[in-house]
């Protein structure tokens, strides 16, 4: 047996918004180079948990955390953490495609430029490489100077993935990345995620249970801030051990 590499080790981890406990003492490991899906009804804390993986919750002033969140063995909530660097290593893609209002090229080159890459040929290489990995290169290689906002929804979402990949992240967090897309674009993104997991660890929050079933290796089911069940996706969808999980995935919830 090959030993599993846990890129995130989450232990007794809680998140508060003021007095409200949004995530309740969760313990969970995220395996490297796999897709882990987080499912659960609205308000269950799944997006909050996702955003805590690269400290996006810091942007909400009333939020605070308890417990441990180790990324590659280091506690990311340590006061010495370089949050900018953390967010480079742990990227994020959102529900609604949100390219910058600039060209396709500039969208992807933005991160590397900020990081100090100046040489045009180097930037060109990074941009092409990221667009290839995001399976968008063929469609945009002749319109790199067009606005990112002129692309279709599915293309914009892949542009956002390319923008994230240009930062050479180890993990990408996806918050409902296909809920604004049509079924074909959704299938493209799903295929892309399957391919990307070979080089990047993926954590995805989705309301679409079939999507979690189709693409993930592991599934976490959350309810009212608690982690109810976590396991192999096969087990969760064929033979869940917890009654709440069963009710949720068979659509008999509440």
């Amino acid at each position, binding site marked *: 047996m090959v030993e599993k590499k846990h890129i995130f080790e989450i232990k007794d981890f809680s998140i508060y918004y003021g007095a409200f406990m949004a995530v309740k003492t969760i313990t969970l490991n995220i395996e490297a180079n796999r897709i882990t899906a987080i499912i659960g009804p609205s308000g269950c804390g799944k997006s909050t948990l996702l955003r805590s993986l690269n400290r996006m919750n810091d942007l909400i002033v009333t939020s605070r955390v308890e417990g441990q969140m180790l990324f590659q063995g280091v506690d990311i909530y340590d006061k010495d953490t370089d949050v900018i660097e953390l967010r480079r290593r742990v990227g994020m893609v959102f529900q609604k495609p949100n390219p910058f209002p600039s060209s396709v090229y500039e969208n992807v080159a933005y991160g590397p430029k900020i990081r100090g890459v100046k040489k045009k040929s180097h930037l060109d290489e990074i941009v092409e490489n990221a667009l290839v990995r995001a399976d968008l290169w063929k469609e945009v290689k002749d319109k790199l100077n067009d606005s990112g906002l002129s692309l279709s929804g599915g293309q914009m979402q892949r542009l956002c993935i390319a923008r994230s990949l240009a930062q050479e992240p180890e993990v990408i967090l996806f918050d409902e990345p296909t809920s604004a897309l049509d079924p074909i674009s959704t299938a493209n993104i799903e295929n892309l995620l399957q391919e990307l997991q070979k080089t990047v660890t993926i954590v995805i929050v989705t309301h679409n*249970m*079939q999507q979690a079933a189709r693409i993930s290796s592991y599934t976490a089911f959350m309810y009212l801030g608690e982690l109810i069940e976590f396991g192999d996706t096969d087990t969760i*969808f*064929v*033979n869940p051990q917890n009654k709440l999980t*069963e009710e949720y995935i*068979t659509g*008999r919830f509440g």
Partner: protein
Amino acid sequence: MAIFDDELKALRERVLKLGFMVENAIRDSVKALIDRDSDLAREVIKRDHLINALDVGIDEECVRLIALRQPMARDLRFITTTMKITTDLERMGDLAVNIAERAIELNNEPQLKPFVNIPKMAEITQSMVRDALDSFVTGCSRLPYEVIKRDDEVDELTVRNFEELLSFMIQDPKIIALAVKRTYIAKYLERIADHATNIAEMIIYMCKGKMIRHTEISEEMQTP
């Protein structure tokens, strides 16, 4: 989900209807043999197409539900179990037809000797079919495990029946044709019991999510 629940309930009822028809076919085919009632045997043969039609209908409904409702967890296990056990039930129906066919042939000849082992086998086999179907409705209990255990008794009776008939055949080779037909009938019953065992194993899967086919059932597994 109310519609889906109704659909699942209707599907379960169709499986039970199929089970009822198969139970009748088995009972009547054995009765036709013991009572030397060839009309009843022909009745069993004539009714088989109804079993086949229902089997096909249930399979089609399962495929429809998988496509349209995308069942998960216990719903998924229920539907896959249904698809598998209707195949077993349909095969049982065919075996009842085989018994009926042999009964007609044997009824045209003088009685070889009174039936001893076959009625016993038929009784156990029918109880296995009944309990397997009951456990499909009642769900997780010890019942499917009991069904699996009883299969050994049927196997033993099959061997005993063969050995007895063999000694008859050695004494009097003229009766070989008739005796062989009787061994066929025992074999058919033994196969029906095997199908009942398959059903019981699938019920355990439906309940527990564990495939126990082709494994020894350990004591641990027998805890419902």
